[in-house]
């Protein structure tokens, strides 16, 4: 057997790490996936190669996140290896060692936001975002699309790229009114400098293969085509599966494989997925085969034949309408709309709950409205574990005005004693400092 498209699989199951021995995010999670891949002889297939992750550096994390009080307080080695796995996956593709790559790593990351005080939704640092920022720092890549097919809305990834018009974030997920974290409604479309580069498709419970593939065909693929990214990343969460214990969808391994085939992502990253025996072995196999351009038509769960996964007609009708509405909202973003005059801050107040670590955070996020660049970002944050802290980000491609504004904010913050910790992300001078 020979892969049509060479594939690097960065596999790291962290067999000695768990959030808690009985937690879904535990040692056993990728055990049966490894058994299945080994029994299939997947790493003997010509063109499919297994790789070891790297270790993400302090700089890799500080380039992406504001971690308070510091990176080492909110991460463990497992997080740095998991993020290092995505970096390895990216490097394999961008160095043209393989055509595509799949980071089959844990723990996941898509609920980790720009500011990190601890773990939420089993995530500490956002492993896709760390990868995206690594790519932008080291390769001449500008436009990146992230398609998140995890069942939970990737509120962390959305938060990080809310103001970034060069990153298109599309999420297909179970409607937030019925599942954690609750966000991801269709009207969430991005900040004033990046309207229309955040797209949410909240699918109703019991959506089957038919509904997912319809949303892919009608919404995801056309918007991707329109955006024309240099690289496509799939946040390949696997908890839409009909057997997942913590969600309510009816997606199958075969559906995941077809979606992977349609999306044709350059890099896939494992996110959630907690049906570790009944789904993950088959979904991961399906994704691997589809990415390598191999036949996946015999990949079915053992109980697939006896399950009735036909989608209810009402659900089909609802999804059709939903697709139209999302597309309509997307088109509206292209029209001129009211926004603040350049040179002013657009301010959001956010309350964030960290379910995994039980932390409450209050945030005041200000973005400079700018028609030259992505705009300087300022976040004031306080939480049940940290006093008031400040994060300042001068984005890549920042205009002179935004650079100067960033340093003015820094000088001002350091002159006073309002903030316990201040972190600067200066992408122009590659300066990532915690004061």
């Amino acid at each position, binding site marked *: *057997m020979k892969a049509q498209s060479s594939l690097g699989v960065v*596999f*790291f*199951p*962290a*067999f*000695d*790490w768990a959030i808690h*021995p*009985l937690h879904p995010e*535990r*040692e*056993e999670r990728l*055990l*049966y996936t*490894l*058994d*299945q891949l*080994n*029994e*299939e*002889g997947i790493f*003997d297939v010509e063109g499919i190669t*297994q*790789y*070891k*992750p790297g*270790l993400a550096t302090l700089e890799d994390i500080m380039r992406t996140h504001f971690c308070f009080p510091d990176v080492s307080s909110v991460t463990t*080695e*497992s997080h740095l*290896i998991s993020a290092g796995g995505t970096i390895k996956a990216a490097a394999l593709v961008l160095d043209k060692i393989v055509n595509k790559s799949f980071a089959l790593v844990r723990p996941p990351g898509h609920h980790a936001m720009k500011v990190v005080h601890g773990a939420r939704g089993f995530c500490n640092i956002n492993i896709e975002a760390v990868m995206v920022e690594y790519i932008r720092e080291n390769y001449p890549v500008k436009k990146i699309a992230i398609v998140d097919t995890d069942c939970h809305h990737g509120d962390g990834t959305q938060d990080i790229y809310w103001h970034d018009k060069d990153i298109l974030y599309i999420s297909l997920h179970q409607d937030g009114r019925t599942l954690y974290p609750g966000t991801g409604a269709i009207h969430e479309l991005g900040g004033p400098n990046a309207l229309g580069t955040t797209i949410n498709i909240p699918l109703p419970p019991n959506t089957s293969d038919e509904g997912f593939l319809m949303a892919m065909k009608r919404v995801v693929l056309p918007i991707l085509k329109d955006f024309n990214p240099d690289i496509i990343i799939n946040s390949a969460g696997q908890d839409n599966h009909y057997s997942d*214990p913590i969600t309510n969808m009816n997606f199958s391994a075969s559906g995941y494989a077809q979606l992977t085939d349609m999306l044709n992502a350059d890099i896939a990253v494992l996110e959630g997925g907690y049906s570790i*025996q009944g789904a993950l*072995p*088959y979904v991961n*196999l399906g994704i691997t*085969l589809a990415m390598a351009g*191999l*036949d996946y038509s*015999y*990949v*079915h*769960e*053992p109980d697939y034949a006896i399950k009735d996964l036909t989608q209810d007609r009402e659900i089909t009708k609802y999804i059709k309408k939903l697709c139209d509405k999302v597309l309509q909202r997307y088109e509206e973003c292209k029209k001129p709309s009211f926004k603040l005059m350049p040179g002013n801050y657009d301010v959001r107040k956010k309350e964030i709950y960290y379910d995994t670590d039980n932390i409450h955070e209050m945030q005041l996020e200000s973005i400079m409205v700018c028609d030259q660049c992505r705009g300087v970002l300022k976040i004031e944050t306080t939480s049940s574990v940290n006093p008031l802290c400040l994060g300042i980000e001068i984005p890549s491609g920042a205009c002179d005005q935004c650079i100067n504004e960033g340093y003015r904010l820094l000088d001002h913050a350091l002159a006073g004693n309002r903030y316990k910790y201040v972190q600067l992300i200066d992408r122009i001078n590659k300066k990532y400092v915690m004061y």
Partner: protein
Amino acid sequence: MYLGLDVGGTHTDTVIIGNSGVIAKSKIATTHDNLLSCITDSFSAVLANVDPSQIQRVNLSTTLTTNAIIQNKCEKVGMFVSGGPGIHPASYSIGNFYYIIDGQIDHRGTEITLLNLKQLDKAIKKCKKKGIKVYAVISKFSTRNPEHEQLIAQKLGDVDFISVGHKISGNLNFPRRIATAYYNTAVWRLYNSFSYAVAESLRAWGVTAPVNILKADGGTIPLHISQTMPVESILSGPAASVIGTMALCNITEDAVMLDIGGTTCDIALFADGAPLIEKDGICIDDRNTLVRSLKTKSIGIGGDSVIKINGTTVTTGPERLGMSMAEGGNNPTIIDALNVLKTINFMDTSRSMEGLLALGKKYRLSVDDIANAAITYAMDVIYNEVMAMIEEVNARPVYTIYEFLQGKVIKPKTIYLIGGPAKTLSNLIARRFGLNVKVPQHCQVANAIGAAVARTTVEIELFADTQRCRLLIPNLEVNTRIPAGYTLDNAIDDAKNYMIQYLTTLGVDEKEREIEIVDTYSFNMVKGFETVGKNIRVRCQVKPGILHQCKDILKI
């Protein structure tokens, strides 16, 4: 006394090791059409002046099965394969009589669909009608539940031979299990008639010692075991050299072994003195197998590699077009380059000079430049291949944070050089690698010495599922009940005990039963928010090495 024999591509080497070290050795040409002939001739050569009754152990490394597979001199095999969720088993079709039987077992060993007995009966009838007498039976995840394989074997009834997948190895890998079982059956008849003949010939010489066969992992198995597992005898040649090097040098550090012959250079690596083992198994005839093997790599650079010039670029290898000019060949080779530079003084040096002069004239290059460039090129190829192999080993995947952070990194300190041109190349190799090079005594028959002193090796994987109260050691055919409270410590004890039992049945001396636990895992299996059992895996082995008695003789 220990007799070791290694049938190589060119020569068959034999030694007898006695109390004073190597007491007899022979090197004769291999007779590929009739291996038995060069083997019995070798016995004659070394046994002439020794008392055959004093031989304690005979170890043989032969190319019989390897050649049969590569030259496709195989018997037709009835293949019965049953799949399961995943890649379709038709993708691994091998031979002309490959039958897929419906039936599925999943990764936990749960039977998902029953074996289709109607289909099976039909396939069996077809095979028997076609006169097929030997079979291989493989089901997916049979190392987690061997029932389907056992049922098919039972239905096949009275046939000459059946290879059953789970008995080959405890490892997961369906395609490799299929290929390995196929080859095991395909060479069975040929191997058995050969092995009986060898045993007969030894008896005729008055040798009553147990006879063992060398495997690619550098260990041996008793002849009678190899008669049902003939595939274990493939590609044992490089392993013989590795074990031989270990026997001749006391290796305790990270090191590289280079066995430079006429056509090829074999590379092997040592970590803290132990030879590295290939993760899954060896590849033969473009098929991956589950036959355990040392990690070795063969590259096309040797003493007889032809010197080639393209414009002003001088290269050599991988072709060999006969011998060097010094030995009467028609094309200048590395040996000739060494002759010209006076690094060696080998046979007819004037012919070497003649050959390089002709090349020089044709491409307007000086003889010294060509010779130097060719040797530099050869050294570079060897160096780069060794470095790539080390890099690959150091980059091999690990699955725990502990291994990720604490994992062993190989950094060789010494190069052990054996083979024909070893001595003459040692300075060049030392300079290229910037490392200490050692060339052991008797290095021309290191392979036969390796065969003579190799100990018996076994690897098992124990798999315990306490939710189902089931313990399996597939290749020992252990399939038994365990209590729900079974622990990892119990599993380690059981693995060792079953291993000792098995080694005893193999007749392995108590001193040679050094069991090493390679990997242990114990996972909590959780359903909802409750632990429902443990999934335990223990892998242990007797690792390849040298018989203790021989260590005393060889003083290592």
